[in-house]
């Protein structure tokens, strides 16, 4: 039912700092989510190497049979990616919105250490609101 299955945030070294599962299937193992995040970080980098045109910024959208993966990389190297239903529109805007929430509620939190896992209550609350709003507008279409 949900358009989004899960959300990952990785730091500039490829380590997972945030993972949220919205799918109906059981949560993925923590270790598995860490491995997948690192794997994605490496794939993102390799895809830049294989570009025929200079100036490649890495994978933005991966289309598979049963899901789509949208990725947004900020200028600082932090990557935000969502696993969603195939053909979901408007994920880029959602990712940019999540980036804004990250800058507001995580980076400006004085107790947050850079590159560490995110444990910020305000970020969780606002993120849940943003996802809910997106879900409502998705169902409304």
């Amino acid at each position, binding site marked *: 039912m949900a358009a989004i*299955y*899960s959300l990952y945030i990785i730091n500039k070294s490829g380590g997972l700092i945030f993972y949220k599962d919205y*799918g109906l*299937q*059981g949560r993925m193992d923590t270790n*598995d989510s860490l*491995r*997948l995040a690192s*794997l*994605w970080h*490496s*794939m993102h980098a*390799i*895809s*830049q*190497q*294989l*570009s*025929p*045109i*200079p*100036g*490649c*910024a*890495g*994978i*933005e*959208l*991966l*289309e*598979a*049979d*049963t*899901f789509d*993966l949208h990725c947004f990389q900020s200028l600082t190297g932090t990557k935000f990616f969502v*696993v969603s239903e195939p053909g979901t529109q408007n994920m880029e805007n959602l990712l940019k919105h999540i980036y804004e929430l990250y800058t507001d509620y995580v980076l400006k939190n004085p107790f947050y250490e850079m590159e560490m896992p995110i444990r910020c209550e305000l970020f969780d609350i606002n993120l849940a609101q943003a996802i809910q709003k997106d879900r409502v507008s998705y169902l409304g279409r």
Partner: protein
Amino acid sequence: MQFFGGSEISPSPPVPTASGNNAHMMYIFNRNGVCLLYREWNRPLRTLDSNQDHKLMFGLLFSLKSLTAKMDPSSTEKGNLGVPQLPGQGCSFHSFRTNTYKLSFMESPSGIKIILVTHPKASDLRESLKYIYNLYVEYVVKNPLYTPGTPIRSVENLIDFNFHYTIGPEASYSTQLLTNMCEVSDDLAQVSLLQHLVYNG
């Protein structure tokens, strides 16, 4: 996905877009990672030598398939990450897009991987990939002189020219193409067959 649709090549090749020059490169790999075919039409940036490049491409695809099989939200039972998957087992991706290129991928049940690197605005190329696979079957696999697992040489095989005609940069009836073919092969029989292919599609 239907691979064995009949003995003829898929009757309607994909409609070429108005402006040619959509494709940058094409790779065909077998299941062991041997690059059977590599064609490039437009590649301004080359970061590695061709051997490294093929290995990197194959490695990227192998790892991405492993990632998508694990990340698949619909299957409940998944193997561990990195377990070698049979072709067709587990969820596989069919394309990814960056800001400078789009890579379309198809794997046949026998493990033949066909990759097309195109402009990022290109539409879904799965039909084109299936068409290329049909060409591969008709002209390469059925060629008695071809040894499986070795790179495809364009003099022996017509896949190169047929592809060049359909969705490569010269996607139009082109006498230039015929001239090129004549330069490569003096064999009149081959040329007449190629002529037939170009004009009758």
